[in-house]
């Protein structure tokens, strides 16, 4: 699977380990001064990183079950999109995502404290996404 390549990171990328150290359909925690980050590996081998806190009540997303490009939180079953950190409707909320780079099987994260501002989609928009008028 080709990873969307993100090259720009100021000040610099931080290597966090190799892809093989994360089970397929699994996650590992990277502990950092700005809090724990969950690094996911999907069944197709894509790598994503989210803050390890569920938008619902702060459950550790790294402990959930990974399916498709989503993770189901272990505490109350919210589903979170891995690629943008947004909760799958009808649940609403989002968690911070981090840019990821994979080179020669080594994962790097972009650890800026504020990421390109990530706004949760509005409630109305969410309703339409769910399609059930």
């Amino acid at each position: 699977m080709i990873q969307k390549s993100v090259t720009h990171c100021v000040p610099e990328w931080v290597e966090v380990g190799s892809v093989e150290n994360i089970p397929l359909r699994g996650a590992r925690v990277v502990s950092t001064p700005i809090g724990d980050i969950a690094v996911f590996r999907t069944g197709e081998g894509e790598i994503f990183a989210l803050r390890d806190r569920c938008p619902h009540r702060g459950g550790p997303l790294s402990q959930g079950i990974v399916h498709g490009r989503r993770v189901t939180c272990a505490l109350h079953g919210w589903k979170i999109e891995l690629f943008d950190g947004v909760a799958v409707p009808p649940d609403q909320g989002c968690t911070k995502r981090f840019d990821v780079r994979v080179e020669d099987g080594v994962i790097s994260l972009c650890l800026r404290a504020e990421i390109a501002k990530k706004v949760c989609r509005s409630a109305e928009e969410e309703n339409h996404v769910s399609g059930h008028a």
Partner: protein
Amino acid sequence: MKKLKLVVIGNGMAGMRTVEELLKLAPDLYDITVFGAEPHGNYNRILLSPVLAGESSFSEILLNSEVWYRENGITLYAGKEVVEIDRRHRKVIASDGTEAQYDRLLIATGSKPIALPIPGATLPGVVGFRTIRDVEMMLEASRAKGNAVVIGGGLLGLEAAAGLMKQGMSVSVIHLMNTLMDRQLDEAAAAMLRRTLEARGLKIFLSANTEQILGEERVRAVRLADGTEIPTDLVVMAVGIRPDAALAKAAGLHCERGIVTNDTMQTFDPRIYAVGECVQHRGRTYGLVAPLFEQAKVCANQLALLGHSAYRGSTDSARLKVADIDLFSAGDFREAENADTIVLHDLGRGIYKKLVLADNRIRGVVLYGDAIDASWYYQLLCDGVDVSGNRDRLLFGKALAGDAGRGAKDTFLELSDDTEICGCNGVCKKTIVDAITEKKLFTLEEVRAHTKASSSCGSCTGLVKQILAHTLGSDFSEGPTKKPLCACTEYSHDEVRSTIREEELKSIGEAMVFLEWKTTDGCAACRQALNYYLHCAWPGEYEHDAQSRFINERAHANIQKDGSYSVIPRMWGGMTTVSELRAIADVAEKHSVPALHITGGQRIDLLGVKKEVLPEIWRDLNDAGMVSGYAYAKAVRTVKTCVGKQWCRFGTQDSTAMGIEIEKMTWGAWAPHKVKLAVSGCPRNCAEATIKDFGVVAVDSGWELHVGGNGGVKVRATDFLCKVATEAEVLETCGAFLQMYREEAHYLERTAAWIERVGLAAIRKRIVDDATGRKVLYERFLHSQKFSQKDPWAERAREGVEAHEFKALTVVTKGEAA
């Protein structure tokens, strides 16, 4: 790829539900064009009665606004009636000349009210009861508060009559038959209904044949065959509906009473599908939305070119949506020779209940005055459950027929808005009701998705269904018997299980491919279920797929709200020793465990442990001879015991030793859900064995065995299974029962729910009556245990199994991060 063209004729409930389902499955497959004779978006026809009664407004019952069509790229021709289908050129033509080309055509024209062929039937002031236009005309006529006549004393007619009375009109109902709602009610219930309605001021003419509607410019009166004239300002014809198949017939499609379709909702022209009331399927037409929504689902699946779903017909049920009248009927409730009828008739309280049983299964049900158990009976009926086990109490409802507690009795009507319905997710009644009305939800799944109610332990499911039924005024939320395991598949739990066995599927991936899973790697629900089913089917062969297990089973500890874990070592039969207690104390001190707690399962819980410390704690506990208590698992948890004959002055047997033996035999057995056991030393039952999945109560002459109990949200006491004389028999029966449960229950179904679904009789037959079969089950249990009884803590603390689970990938220090 160029998009295919889909044209839909009929902008009503079945047609639009099909389109919605289709958009979910294949959003980009079609360019969709919808023709609707009515000049607005699709609305909830069912709720016309509340609009007539002034309880809702039109905007509240609109299901798909024009914005919705636009946003989904659908061309809507509202107010344009299709007058011709040109099959040769594959196009449809509307009355104003608009044409649309199709690759696939969906006919969803619904039905038309039957207009009696009598003089005066076309006079102004005569309306049907089908569309919002009809309701507007009725409301307009009711403004003068005059007289109204409703022709037809069926479901629709009575709802119209009730609404018009509510608007202040003086209403008469004329009905051809000698009882009201003769298609849905038997005589006794109909008589009670009649009394109630008459007490509210409705005039009812039975066995009355309408001969003519009188009037010159507008209706003035209705004349019956016997000469009676009833003066009136409004006539509502509600004598029945006729499937609207005229258009299809004119296009040369095979029609009988309705448009004939096969199980995939295809008409005789393979490009043309039909759904809704206009359809005749396996000789039947339907007039309620539940079956139509089922058709919609199947049809969408076919249109999406997935083609693995078929419609097999539904069981009818009816509920009258008139305030304070509780009435329900379903199935075939006529008395017949091969059927038994059980009746409760309490005129004083205005309650009537009738169940018709054939072969110990419910065939029909009529409830009047107390329909709180409607959904329960309906489910038993649809599932064909053998009710011989509780036949004597069946009529008293779910509460007294053995399923006590929260789900039962008048509960939810009496509940205030802020009563918590779902304890797991903290959802109260008002939240659910609001979500149903505001978000226009129809099914249990939708309520679960939007409110989370009933999405966790499921014990409030019954209540949520009742709320759904009453809020919508109908029980079309009840699905058909077959429920897919989850949204990733069309197959039910049972189908998945049997296919795994028959086709010798040995991994989750294989099962998903063979069973045509719709998603690449499933979801949290099906992956856990598949993992368990494979484990159960192939003991010793299948290795658990860690990534398809809930975190507690992956980490062998219970996750807590703050992300820390709890550790509960096993204490066999609730017995412990000085050295065990000392070891626990030492471990707690060494690792600064923040809290210790005695669980209800007679052991000690170390709470607030950081994940990375778990293996160390386990090693220390292992060193003291302690192993995992599986307190986190869908598996055998504990065997609770009392001190029994060893100490207690009432004890009849050594219940502690019995409990320890059972625990030694059963520990480590994975199951569809958690399994709790207990052994009491005498009928005083201090170990509370009668609310356990498997409970043993010692008596002088042996052991009584009980099954299917649980505590919790919805307490269920056990059913008595049998009595045995020896310890060996206790073990054999216990093992056989657990194995049958492991092999046959659905994932996440506790023994209580399982027994209620399959019936105690079915379990007795295999576990008590059939000695050979019992032995075979027992053997299979012991065989599977050979591979399961490995302490997962030891493997992780000493052998480095799954080491990555307990360690951070890396720790980034301050200097590295920005």
